[in-house]
């Protein structure tokens, strides 16, 4: 009811997301953060990680798959509670 509620929710979601991220191998974490947050290309990420762009693609795919599982669970829970994420 208070005006602060959406911000709290946001912080909570961020916190949870970070915990979900930590469930991934470190290289996979770096790859998805560089790609989604920093807008880096696979080539650029490949240089940072010292792997091939093809490997970066694998990391990204793995991260996406991990987050799909999480988001689906979140969506199911919020549908039960009648709350939009």
């Amino acid at each position: 009811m208070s005006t602060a509620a959406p911000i709290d929710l946001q912080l909570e979601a961020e916190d949870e997301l970070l915990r979900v991220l930590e469930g991934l191998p470190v290289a996979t974490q770096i790859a998805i953060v560089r790609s989604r947050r920093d807008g880096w290309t696979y080539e650029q990420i490949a240089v940072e990680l010292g792997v091939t762009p093809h490997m970066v693609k694998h990391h990204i795919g793995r991260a996406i798959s991990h987050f799909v599982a999480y988001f689906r669970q979140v969506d199911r829970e919020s549908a039960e509670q009648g709350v939009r994420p």
Partner: protein
Amino acid sequence: MKMDQPTDETLRAEGADWVATLHGSLPSSPAEAREYEANCRHFIDWVRRSPDHVAGFLYADDAFCRLNGLDLLSHVDIDELRNRYSANIQEQSSSFSPKTSQRPRRFRRRTLFAVAASILLIFAGAISFEILKHSHEYATAVGEQLNVKLPDGSLMLLNTKSRVWFAFSAQQRLVYLTQGEALFEVEHDQKRPFIVLTPSARVRAVGTRFNVYQHPEGATAGGNSTTVSVLEGVVQIASQTSAAVNSVTEPSVPSETLESADTSAPPTQAPARLAAGEQASISRAGVTRHASPDVADAVAWRDRVLVFQGTSIADVAAEYNRYNTSQVRIEDTDIEQRQLSGTYSADRPENLVRYLEEAFPVAVTRQGNDWIVRRR
């Protein structure tokens, strides 16, 4: 459930892999373009297998977009991750044999999605059912021309021996000209830029009329480069190199970056604006403006007419050969270097042969359907 039904987890992983694959950079060479096209076809085959596959893809695409849009990753401490990563690597190389770790890495760098990706095929999830509905390929045979009305109402006239693949989404209209030449009459849509990619160039328009010609590899004139001629409006052009990739997706480029109209100037890597009546060549090296172009000549092919102005006989023959299965082969370097001006019918290579017979001391022999022109 049937035994051969893929599990939920498999579909989730495969869907995620496809999103990761399609998110990679666009191809920047003909070889990559072929691989890319094959990939797109594989994807469409995969996604059509069942509604579950479609769902698997859309869930992955959705997750990908949510990571992007919500900015939830802003608090990740990337330096801490990097330290942990390099510590891991060191630990691994010291716990395993340190000598083998010094051996050079042997794996080949796969260049499928090499070069920076800023024009994304999926631009924050643009890929969806839309792309499946509106993803098509058109190709023309030698001498054939094809008029296509694109899903957004834009018109595309495809010239001889050409190939395009296009994918339209809510965010952008993407056309990949892998071979040959096309004239575009773009329907105005401020929200969805119209982007034409070739192996060497990127052209971005909103609503305009322009011609794009990808010169074949190894051609004497402009080999492996793209010539863009603008008839109406303005387009932005950039080379297919990582340095210039970002610029084409940006809304505008200041005109101060323009190269002066001088063909002797070296190619510039900066993206350029090209207005009506202007023409430029774009290669991997950059953009070169043409000094005093005649853009009407550049689209004379619509009327199946070839216009030459001081063009070498070698290029004239190559031009005829684009339109005709009967090829004119000139086996004399001196004659090849002579120049020719005038307007000719693209469908009549015999006229060129007749001209050569009259103007030069040559002997013409037939080999199958082809003409071989040699000095007498």
